[in-house]
């Protein structure tokens, strides 16, 4: 089947019920989205399908209609997205394993709600678990990214 990831069309030969995460990671070697729980509880696998954040670990690949964007497609080390820049400036990451998912959730939030309230941030980001406890800096980085995007 065809799968468009980060603007590139792939032909993949996998079981249709295979979760998108495992198509990305093991079939396409796109390892930015992480495996954390397999039951949509931790958010480490968050990617965008047509701009909407989804938990790739429970999203069957056959249900994908449209474009998949992973953290690699959001921005690169040489050309980071505003959310990624804010993450670097706030020095958010510790172990870093959850951060791909955190950043994808934050980017989706700001795309639909450019000036989120504290409650909006709490709501949008509480599906992403961080075991290292970087939440205070995640909160600061989401606010900083919103400001950055507002300035253009």
């Amino acid at each position, binding site marked *: 089947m065809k799968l468009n990831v980060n603007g590139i069309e792939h032909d993949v030969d*996998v*079981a249709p019920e*295979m*979760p998108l995460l*495992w198509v990305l*990671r*093991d*079939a396409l*070697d796109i*390892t*930015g*989205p*992480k*495996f*954390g*729980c*397999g*039951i949509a*509880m*931790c958010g*480490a696998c968050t990617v965008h399908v047509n701009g909407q954040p989804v938990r790739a670990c429970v999203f069957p690949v056959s249900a994908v209609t449209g474009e998949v964007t*992973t*953290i*690699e497609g959001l*921005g*690169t*080390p040489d050309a*980071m997205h505003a959310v*990624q820049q804010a*993450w*670097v400036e706030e*020095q*958010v*990451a*510790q*172990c*870093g*394993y*959850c*951060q*791909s998912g955190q*950043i994808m959730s934050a980017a989706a939030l700001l795309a639909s709600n450019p000036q989120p309230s504290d409650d909006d*941030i*709490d*709501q949008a*980001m*509480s*599906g*992403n*678990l*961080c*075991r*290292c*406890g*970087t*939440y*205070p*800096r*995640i*909160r600061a980085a989401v606010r900083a990214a919103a400001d950055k995007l507002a300035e253009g």
Partner: protein
Amino acid sequence: MGKLKTITRRTLLIGSAAVAGGFAVGYWQYKRPYDNPLLADLDEGESALTPYVRIDQQGITIITPRAEMGQGVHTTLAALVAEELGVELDDVTVEHGPASKAYFNEAILEEAVPFAQTDLGRMAEGARAFTKVPAKFLGLQVTGGSSSMPDGFAKMRKAGAAARSMLLAAASERLGVGVEALSVDNGAVVAADGSRIAYVDLAAAAASQRAPNDPDLKPHSEWRLLGRSLPRVDVVGKSTGTAEFGVDIRLPGMLYATVKMNPRLGGPMFSFDADAARAMPGVKDIIALDGGVAVVATNSWYAFKAADAIVFDWGDAPYPSTSAAMLEAIGASFTDEYQDSRHRDDGDVDDALVEADVIEGEYRVPFLAHATLEPMNATALLKDGRLDVWAGTQVPTQVIKEAVAITGLDEDAIRVHTPYMGGGFGRRAEMDIVKQAISVAVAMEGTPVKTTWTREEDMTHDQYRPAAIARFRGAVADGRPVALDLQLATVSVIASQMGRLGIPAAGPDVSIVQSAWDQPYGIENYRVTGYRTPAMIPVTSWRAVGASQNGFFHEGVIDELAIAAGADPLEMRLSLMTHEPSRRVLQAVAEMSDWGGPLPANHGKGVAFVYSFGVSVAQVIEVANTSAGIRLIDVWVAADVGIALDPRNIEGQLQGGIIFGLTAAIKGEITVADGQVEQKNFNTYDGLRLRQVPGISVNVLENGSKIRGIGEPGLPPAAPALANAIYAATGQRIRELPLEKHINFV
């Protein structure tokens, strides 16, 4: 002259025998450094000036041989080398490097001596210095015990200084001028006329220079990098999905495996039926292991599905079948037979309690899982008589040992690659996943295989933080405690862990009483006794180890005594404090939190102080008692690390340690039924979420006399500060974790 030399040497040996005890025989061996492991794998044109500095035409690489599992250690260790070498962190590559005894941790055993870290007397310091000897011979490259900074602070700077000295010597030869006419600046030697020779152009010549044993180090006042908040070397990779964790290893032709082991940990597998699984899509092989199987497939998800389709006949667990029964066993071990240590016995506690109004009680904590967000995984390839292992491990040298045992290969034929770790917290000091991955590689010789656990396998096959029970009796007079008898019972983490590593561990396990017996409080009659419950379910180090439970026990008890004495809990702690840096953190947190200031209705503040891993940490937490439950309002923390190498990183570690501690305090509990762990994923073993976490204000102090690590010490005061705040807000004293069992949280 020759004779004089002999005598001097003999005298030295005798002198060192007095200090080093039975190890004097090996003194020369002790002083002799391990070989530089980088030399074995150098390519044409590469030089390794020390085990920590490799230079080739592409540039300079600093080796930071400790597990980067979130604590920022690669950045700070690299900064220590870079400071002396005279390079900017932006201009060098930082990598973990190979597994080698050359990277042994000389500070790892310091915590095991029965002297409080506040004790800087000759006996205590002598005992600590002595632990460097067995640490050397153990040759354990290990990350843990918040020891990377105490271990690396001088060593890494000396490595940078030695390399700089060799580069200067090479430049001196080339230019025909004395070293004193040269200086270094940003990766180059600079001559008096301002001309520069880049390090990369000097590396080959520098490699043949003699490395100084004890190079001079810059004074603190000349530091450019140390003491400043530096951008983490891994932050861009971790913000763009490009940092490579163990689970991200990709190799040509690689297959993907998972395992299914007896859910009764350590129990046998009698038989299994994999007929259905073998016929499933993508399945390549099913391999019997000791106590379970591995399924190898073309995709991890195919391996997971096939493993679920196997029917097993499992044997019983080699421990009591429920966590309730295990807690009962812990409760039954407060007897002379199980007494493990009594490192503190001031005054006469029994006598002091005879006539007094005794305050007494029992505290409990449950088993806990590490639940690193990156599930256990490792990749291995056995090909042409060489084994490569890629594993996020806190003990790379142990991987070599296990690999030799499984494959029969020589150590020289084994390479261990240590990528970033998605959390460690002590879990990645265990070898279970590594042994499985190597066994799979042996069965699949010639093909690289990545073995990844499901979250369910991970949660149910941890080696846990043990449950523990504390009992206390105390008495107060004149607004302060006059007697405290604290008894602590749990399973020995050290015996369980060292047993699996094959390292003998004799004597009392200090971790049973860690951060309870050694607190810098002066109480006239003060006794702390540890009791060792016989081994049950496997247990291991979990962030802050014994301090993770003992902080809650000790500081809950101190709070109860303050209330009974009618004293202000923070003022009373200050009045008991016998250690100046500890007094200062309490004063700092009082100021930060406006302790004693007005509070809204239904709000309460709690304080806790815990001295762990040589770090004094005081925390105040404010909660609100709302109709929906307890809401966390604010957290303040002051901590003293002696020397703060990277303040912003320390702030992050303190915040993270507190959140890890609050997660355990509020929600964390592993239970066992029918020999199996009942929590299988984050739906039943969750962490705090962003919406539940308040602001955490941090103050880092530098009054302590030694440099300390900060990965763990933030954690222990979190639970008692919260429980004490709940008492202040509600009048409800909760003596058992998780708190959620007793009170609702918003």
